[in-house]
């Protein structure tokens, strides 16, 4: 019981550190919001016209918003990977490892900071989309559900980023490792309908986890059918758990 209380306390201490880092690195915070906004403007004004016609006069902004959010979370994973690796390079991980603290607690601070950045991106992108004419027929409950899944997806991406941060040889490499996560949503129906892709790609895209997540969010916000909230949640949970376990092991490993 005492150990559990200590672990919770340690999590709070390191989350506090994460919060201070965000406040003192305002430039990182601003870029966390700006790039997702650029994605949104790009897809609305550059591709929006042609895509709207191709989709049969549907609003492309309405269609593409979930994809932009997923892509933004992938992009933000790089920041976490870099931050984790930076702590390794600076020797802070070595210091914590040699201390009698509940060891995987270190990761919690980074997850907390990452969720703050992701939430900010979410608020900025949805807010701007609404200003540009995005309209959703969904109920409040459906939106709440969509937000929960979005944050779970952000958590999953963050967990992968933590492992990348531990595995990378330098902060620069960690940042580069994070990049592919940003492109995962392209291999779903988030930007163009899967039916328009080559056969082999269709098989892959229809089955990959990010597509399941996208279908749930798109279905919830646009009121479509043929999606499963539980499948989306399960995928996010499985990815998070697997990568957090790997991250915990990497943090507390004793080298051979």
């Amino acid at each position, binding site marked *: 019981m005492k150990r559990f209380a*200590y672990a919770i*306390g*340690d999590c709070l*201490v*390191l989350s*506090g*550190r994460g919060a*201070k*880092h965000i406040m*003192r*690195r305002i430039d990182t915070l601003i870029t966390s919001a700006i790039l997702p906004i650029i994605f949104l403007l790009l897809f609305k004004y550059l591709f929006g016209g042609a895509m709207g016609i191709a989709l049969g006069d549907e609003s492309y902004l309405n269609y593409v918003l979930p994809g932009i959010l997923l892509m933004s979370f992938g992009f933000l994973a790089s920041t976490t990977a870099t931050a984790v690796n930076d702590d390794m390079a*600076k*020797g*802070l991980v*070595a*210091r*914590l*490892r*040699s*201390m*009698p*603290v509940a060891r995987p607690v270190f990761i919690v601070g980074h997850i907390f900071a990452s969720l703050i950045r992701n939430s900010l991106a979410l608020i900025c992108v949805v807010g701007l989309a609404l200003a540009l004419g995005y309209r959703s027929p969904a109920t409040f409950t459906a939106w709440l559900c969509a937000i929960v899944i979005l944050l779970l997806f952000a958590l999953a991406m963050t967990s992968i980023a933590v492992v990348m941060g531990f595995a990378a040889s330098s902060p620069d490499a960690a940042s580069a490792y994070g990049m592919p996560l940003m492109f995962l949503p392209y291999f779903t129906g988030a930007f163009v309908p899967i039916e328009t892709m080559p056969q082999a790609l269709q098989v892959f895209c229809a089955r990959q986890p990010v597509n399941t997540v996208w279908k749930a969010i798109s279905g919830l916000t646009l009121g479509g059918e043929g999606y499963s909230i539980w499948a989306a949640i399960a995928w996010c949970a499985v990815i998070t758990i697997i990568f957090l376990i790997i991250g915990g092991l990497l943090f507390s490993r*004793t*080298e*051979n």
Partner: protein
Amino acid sequence: MNEREIAVSVRGLTKNYGKSQVLKGVDFEIPKGSVFCLLGSNGAGKTTIIHILTTRLKPNAGEARICGYDAVKQPAKARRHFSLTGQYAAVDELLTARENLIMIGRLFHIQNPKQKADELLRRFGLTADAHKAVSAYSGGMRRRLDIAMSLTADPEIIFLDEPTTGLDPQNRLEMWQIVRELTKSGITIFLTTQYLDEAERLADTIAILNDGKIVKQGTPEGLKSLIVGSSLVLYFETAADLAKAKERLDGSSLSADNDALTLSITTDGRMKAVAEIIDRLSDLSVTQMEQKRASIEDVFLQLVTKEANQ
């Protein structure tokens, strides 16, 4: 020695990385409250020993104990008794010095983290800069903060892994002062260094690590014959003059570099010895002369020369 009076004991420690054997059976014991210095050149295995003792690395064979606890089998218990200060100051640059100390204090679950932080800031002369972000600190201030953080939980043993590497002479002196003050509090200090003068000034016991083995161990006084003051490096204009100089100084500890045309002479650092060398070589084309801090290489050179002369 009584078990309870021993802070660190290492027996038959070996470690391989693939095929290369880094440690080939290391033994030593450190009494509580003393300063132990592990002296060795780059790559001798100093950091490997520290990593094993601080539970980060598993040895292939042998035993490492911290206050009686096995570093391999009881790492959590061992960790309660020591603190590590690495080759790089492990501080959070975005936080202030006080925030760094409070964070570590909270993670150690000590009673009054804030009070402890202020006490350590005072002790290490950082009170005036306590609320500045560490990114604005000088190298010396970072090291001081780093050591202050290591003392947060009042450890019995502190590991200082090459604490003066990369510091300028002034900060090095300051670090020596800090180590001396630490000894007054009764803490056991495990220090590694590449520099002989550092070991001589700070340690109660010096162990020289070479090629994965402790080759000499003793008090600074006991190792006095090995303690060379410095080396004198001469730069020559011609290879012929370099050869002549080697001939004239036959019997001293020399190492010549025929490509760079330099000759390094190990001396006791006294004016008399230096004057004698200058006197003997006064007619040769020496373009430049400099004195270098004695390093472990100089000791080995001295050791080898002595053996050859006997």
